[in-house]
């Protein structure tokens, strides 16, 4: 955990109510895929947890959806403004667990952590497939970015306006991708629907309302095979076999 001031380099809409926030901070090291940060938002008491979307030394990109007051306040901020972040939170994805072929599955704003994950997997020499699910074509984000990072991308939309019509579960059945390990990130109902369809070797990035994001408050507890765990501290990424779903 590190507390650090970042400067907003850009804060731009990329889809309806979705923004890409580019931050800079001298000397900050790169953050791991699947880790998250806690952003101090003007006017809110608690910080807001957001996933590392892309990170390199000195730079950090977040991708967020405006869903309430905190994210709305964030969307109103201008380049040049400063933000205080807690960084280096959470365990991150297990890149080593994948032997050769990785499948990434993301739904909605849950796609946010996939770019860094894809980059790290590619850097480790793995092949990457991705299935991205959205409600409709206008919400579609990150396809081009993931392709540029070397992934083969399939898209599913509920209304069929882009890619396969249906849910990521439908896309999974249809595409029948070849992979030895998978990484899932998205809304809980999506993850629960995917759970029985997927083999043992893979992991899920979970979300829960957080008080602290640093393991102090026990606000984000889930039941695992191994007893109660704090999503922020022991997760957010859990292996499938840890989840008693």
């Amino acid at each position, binding site marked *: *955990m590190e*507390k650090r001031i970042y400067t907003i380099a850009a804060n731009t809409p990329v889809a309806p109510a979705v923004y890409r926030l580019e931050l800079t901070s001298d000397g900050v090291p790169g953050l791991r895929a699947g880790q998250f940060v806690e952003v*101090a938002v003007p006017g*809110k*008491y*608690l*910080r807001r947890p957001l996933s590392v979307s892309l990170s390199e030394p000195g730079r950090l990109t977040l991708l967020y959806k405006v869903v309430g007051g*905190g994210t709305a306040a964030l969307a109103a901020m201008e380049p040049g403004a400063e933000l205080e972040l*807690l960084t280096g939170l959470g365990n991150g994805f297990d890149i080593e667990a994948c032997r050769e072929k990785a499948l990434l599955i993301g739904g909605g704003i849950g796609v946010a952590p996939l770019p860094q994950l894809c980059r790290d997997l590619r850097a480790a020499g793995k092949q990457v497939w991705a299935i991205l699910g959205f409600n409709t074509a206008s919400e579609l984000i990150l396809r081009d970015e993931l392709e540029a990072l070397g992934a083969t991308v399939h898209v599913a939309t509920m209304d069929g306006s882009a890619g396969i019509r249906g849910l990521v579960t439908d896309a999974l059945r249809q595409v029948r991708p070849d992979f030895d390990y998978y990484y899932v990130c998205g809304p809980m109902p999506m993850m629960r629907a995917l759970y029985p369809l997927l083999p043992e070797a893979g992991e899920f990035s979970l979300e*829960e*309302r*957080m*008080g*602290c994001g*640093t*393991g*102090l*408050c*026990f*606000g*984000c*507890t*889930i*039941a695992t095979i191994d007893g*109660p765990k704090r999503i922020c*501290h022991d997760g957010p990424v859990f292996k499938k076999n840890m989840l008693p779903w």
Partner: protein
Amino acid sequence: MVKDTSVTLGGIRLKNPVIPASGTFGFGFEMAESYDLNRLGAIVLKGTTLEPRFGNPTPRIAECPGGLLNAVGLQNPGIDALVSDIAPRVRNLCDTPLIANISGFSVDEYGICCEKADACDSIDIVEVNISCPNVHQGGMTFGTDPAAAAAVTRRARQATRKPLFIKLTPNVSDIVPIAKACEEEGADGLTLINTLPGMRIDIRRRKPVLANRTGGFSGPALFPIAVRFVNQAAAACRIPIIGCGGVSAAEDVIEMMMAGATAVQVGSANLRDPLACPTIIDALPALMEQLNIDKLEDIIGII
């Protein structure tokens, strides 16, 4: 001039009066990588019950103006794990006095937990939290009834020779009879306050935000209420008081102490800023200089 920030709590000298509050500092060792725990005046461990508890379903947290609601529901691994595993592990990391925080659902449960805490070398002070529901008295809490507060204190006093602090709830019309009841039964000090019951509703989903419907309100917004309770209890009792509720800055420490507190606990501020405690501690000497305070103990209850 060198500033003296030390205070004495139940005969134990603390190097400063800043103590992370129960339930807002993990098990006690999570922050050891971020800063040296020896910098803290003391550490209150996570609230512990006789049996392990998973706590409430999530969501357990709701943001509010000036603070938050929590309904963690006393998630903890039970008193046996506390005394055999957790407290010794924190003790290995630092020499800072450790305070066990005990909750119970009956007088006996409190008693047994205090006995076990008493037997644990790693624990220096026992803090008994009487703000949790008493299932035996129709959903009331021990902390809202002087007789029930006295009964728990008496039993806890029998169970331990370590300094005994009773943590009181603000959910009362008059704190004085409750504070006095604890003092008369032999408590070495009081901690006040715990959280105030509150509720938030998600107007889009038309449901309470918390799975538990209600939760305890904490954070800076609680501060003026806590100062008032501390001042009232300090005027009524002779035992030392640990002020708790909304403390977020060195100024708040001074204000609590002027109101009558001997030390303070920092709760929600840790959640917003995990470095809150060392930041507050670092700011104390310069603030004392500004306010012409040489020895922090000199200002306890001066108003």
